[in-house]
């Protein structure tokens, strides 16, 4: 279950949809010949991949594209931990919190990532709006089991899985995302 975030200010995302995003959206909808509503999650992913988060205009636009009410999309954004209503860091660091990783030092790894990124380790660990470093570059959060427990502790940094992480190794991992 999740908490709600305030809508963010700034230019409306729906006014800035590039042609290639539109093409991807059209293609995704064709994967669901029985019910367009099924394309809700795929469209939210495409949207967030492009804009970094989903603003109010995005919720409305996606709902309209699929002949739904805005609430049908908003209730997904607020339920699924992956979706964000506010900008996060350009680089997302998602550290596994669950048992096998915790046994191997996952909590220490999160703390080290926070320090390396310039984030207060006491900041909230979970949620739709993770703490962001002062330069806007990194956000660091805990996520639950990433299904790589045999190479614990692990973290997903953008699309890359990093395995067998040590606290000392976190600075050089972040350095790869310059």
């Amino acid at each position, binding site marked *: 279950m999740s908490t709600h975030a305030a809508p963010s200010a700034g230019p409306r995302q729906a006014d800035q949809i590039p042609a290639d995003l539109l093409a991807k959206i059209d293609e995704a909808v064709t994967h669901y010949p029985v*019910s367009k509503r099924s394309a809700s999650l795929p469209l939210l992913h495409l949207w967030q991949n492009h804009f970094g988060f989903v603003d109010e205009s995005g919720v409305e636009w996606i709902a309209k594209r699929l002949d739904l009410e805005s609430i049908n999309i908003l209730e997904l954004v607020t*339920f699924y*931990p*992956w979706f964000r209503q506010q900008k996060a860091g350009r680089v997302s660091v998602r550290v596994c919190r669950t048992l096998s990783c915790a046994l191997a030092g996952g909590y220490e790894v999160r703390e080290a990532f926070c320090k390396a990124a310039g984030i207060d380790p006491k900041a909230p660990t979970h949620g739709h709006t993770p703490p962001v470093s002062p330069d806007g570059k990194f956000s660091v959060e805990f996520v*639950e*089991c990433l299904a*790589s427990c045999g190479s614990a502790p692990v973290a997903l940094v953008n699309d890359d899985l990093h395995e067998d992480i040590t606290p000392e190794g976190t600075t050089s991992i972040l350095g790869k995302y310059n």
Partner: protein
Amino acid sequence: MKSLLLPPHPKERRIVFKNAWTQGYTPDIDCYVKNGGYEQLKKALKMKPEEIIEEIKKANLRGRGGAGFPCGVKWGFIRRDDGKPHYITCNGDESEPGTFKDRYILHNDPHQLIEGMLIAAYALNVNLAYIYIRCEFPKAAGIVTQALKEAREKGFLGKNICGSGFDVDMHVHQGAGAYICGEETSLIESLEGKRPYPRIKPPYFPAVLGLYMSPTIVNNVETFCHVKQILAIGSDEYAKMGTPGDGGTRVMCVSGDVVRPGPYEIPAGGVTLGELINDVCGGMKPGRKLKAVIPGGSSSKILRAGEVFKIKVKGDDGQMIDKEVPLLDLVMDASSLAAAGTMVGSGGVIVMDDSRDMLWALNNLNEFYAHESCGQCTPCREGVLWIDKMTTRMVNGEGLVEDPVTLKSVADNIAGRTVCAFGEAASWPVQSFLQKFPEEFEVAAK
């Protein structure tokens, strides 16, 4: 994953993991076809659908997603000619803590999964299938999407596959970070674009009322791969590899305090817990002793080092007799673990040594369930938060003397009273940790 780069351990038998861990094997279709890929699909398309289902039944294949339901029996619920559309969806949500096997298939050998699903689609008269992949596997989604494209180009997917007159299409669908979507009716709701609240069973057994209210088969990634392997090996051979009622191999994912954690593909019942830990995984970390094992994913009941189980086995005269089996001699198959009061589940074995605090470990799991409850039904939504709050205060030295009793009573009041099996999944750790390690909870409560 370092352990997989080693040659297979003598106890291992890599079948579904064969390609994925062969040096130089690549996930593209040319490599797959060169290694005999799609031959079983071609064979299946020449068989009668009922024959395929019969093979799967005879192979004694149990689902590898956690519930262990016999796959052929599940398929048998589908009436091929009921005039309704049928669907299959592959469960690639892989989120049960301690489980890490499907990820390697999705990333390294996607065509094996696709071939298994195509065989199932033909057997069950399905023209549209989805592969649900958790979004924390972003690369896997790309790899499987590319594999589907290649399969389409080569005529294994789409209209009139392999000239058989049979049409089938398949797409990847990504989750969005919620564990509950692994529960099959939640997965279906998620695929329909709704909040993934699990459905009430009955009446919503997927094979009756599944995706778009049509008969739907949901199977785990590994399960579909075994389907392909059963056709390759033959159901008799396959069944013989395992134990009666639990055929073939199973990937056991070992993590925690062992020397060589990793996913090991082992014939069902082919090792005891002791052999798995001490032999296959190289034993406990130096200087450490075994304390506890969670044998089948975080939801399965924990076992304590030194425990002895009374298990019914067939004696020499064919009569069932009680036998005392120490923990390390417990055979790792579905029926032995069930007899020990726990389950083989998703194959996720979490091993903890004598340096570990059981209250701390339980609290870690409680936080997981508190975070992942979908919130649809009251005993689970409220109960998992209370449980988490209680163990958190106990860990912080602020527990109340009555906390262990309250903890148990909350867990007892969740299990069996919820819409989905998440209720049990969250209660079993609490109940079993308290039962097996009472002294660690008493001390903490003072």
